[in-house]
C-alpha cells in the first residue's frame, strides 16, 4: 500500500484543495455540470502530479486555473456557434449601458447567466478570471498564455458584448412586463 501522506501531500492539502470551489465555478461556466466535474478532476490530477514544480508563496489559485485552462483547451474545447464579433469603433466610446440599476437585481440573474453563457469562450475566460476570480491582468495573461494586451482587449470586448446581450435581455423583459401589464388592465 503506497503511502501518500508526506510533506508534499500535506502542502497540497493546505494549498491546492481549498481552491477547489473557485476552480469548479470557472469550470462550470465553461461547460455543463458533468463535464465541469471531469474538468476539475483532471485539473487536480495534473496538479498533484506536477505539484513539485509549484513555487511556494505564489498564487496557487492562478496556477490551478492555468492548468484548468490547459485541460479545457486540450480536451474539452468544442466548436460552437459564436456571436460574430463587431469591430470596436475607437472613435466612439459608447457607455456600457443606460438602464436603471433595478435590472441587476435577483430576478435578472437568469438573464445574466444566459448572457454569460453566450459570450465567446475567450471573452468569457477573461471575464471569469478578472471579474470573478479577481486576478491581475498579468496573472490572467499567464493563465490564458497570451500577451497582456490581448487580455485587456478581451476584457474590454467581453464586457461590451455582455452589455449588448444584457440589453437584449432587458428589452425582452420590458416587453414581457408590458404584455403582462396590458393583459391585467384588459381583464380589469
Amino acid at each position: 500500500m503506497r503511502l501518500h501522506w508526506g510533506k508534499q501531500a500535506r502542502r497540497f492539502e493546505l494549498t491546492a484543495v481549498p481552491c477547489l470551489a473557485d476552480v469548479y465555478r470557472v469550470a462550470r461556466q465553461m461547460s455543463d455540470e458533468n463535464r465541469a466535474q471531469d474538468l476539475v478532476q483532471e485539473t487536480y490530477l495534473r496538479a498533484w502530479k506536477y505539484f513539485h514544480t509549484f513555487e511556494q508563496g505564489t498564487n496557487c489559485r492562478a496556477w490551478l486555473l492555468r492548468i484548468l485552462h490547459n485541460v479545457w483547451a486540450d480536451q474539452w474545447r468544442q466548436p460552437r456557434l459564436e456571436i460574430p464579433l463587431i469591430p470596436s469603433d475607437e472613435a466612439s466610446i459608447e457607455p456600457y449601458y443606460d438602464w436603471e440599476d433595478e435590472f441587476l437585481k435577483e430576478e435578472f440573474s437568469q438573464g445574466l447567466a444566459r448572457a454569460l453563457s453566450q459570450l465567446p469562450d475567450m471573452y468569457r475566460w477573461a471575464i471569469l478570471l478578472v471579474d470573478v476570480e479577481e486576478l491581475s491582468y498579468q496573472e490572467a495573461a499567464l493563465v490564458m498564455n497570451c500577451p497582456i494586451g490581448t487580455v485587456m482587449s478581451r476584457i474590454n470586448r467581453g464586457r461590451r458584448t455582455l452589455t449588448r446581450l444584457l440589453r437584449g435581455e432587458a428589452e425582452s423583459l420590458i416587453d414581457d412586463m408590458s404584455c403582462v401589464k396590458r393583459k391585467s388592465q384588459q381583464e380589469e
Partner: protein
Amino acid sequence: MDCKEFREVLDLYVDRELSLESMSAGQSHLKGCAACGRVERQLVLLRNSVKRVVNEFDPPAELTDKIDTFARPSWLRLLTGLRKGSRLAWHKKVAVPMPAFAMFLIAVLSLGVWVMSRRTATTPPGRPPGVRTVTPMPESRGLDLSRFDRGERAAIEKMRLRNR
C-alpha cells in the same frame, strides 16, 4: 483627464491596473463628472453581478471527496475524522482500516514468536525454563571468590572442595 480619455481607460481604472498617477487623475475627473461617474458605477455593478451569478454554484460533495483522496488516502481520513458532509456506508467505515489493523496484528504476533524463540534457545535441554544455570568456576586454589558474585559460586566451590 477628460471624458474621452477616462472612458478609454475605464476598464483599467475599475480593475486597478493604472499607475498611481493615472488613478489619481481618474478619481479627480470622477469628482467633477456625473456622467462618467454613473458609467463607472454601472460597470462596477456589472462586475459584482457577474460574480454573484457565478458564485451560486458550489462543488458537489462527491467531487470534494474525490479530490481529497489525491493527497489523503481514505483510511487516514477515517482516522483523523470524516469530512463534514461526506456520506460513507457503514461497511466501508469498518472495512477500510482493516488492512492496516491486519498488518499491525501480524507484526505483534511475529514479535511475540521471536521473543519466545529467544527464551527457549537460552534454556539447556532437560532443565525447566526460568531456572538459572550456573557455570562452575575453575579451581579457586584457596582464594575467596565470594566477593565476585552473590556467593553462589563460592558456595559451589566450597562444596566441591569438601567432597574431595
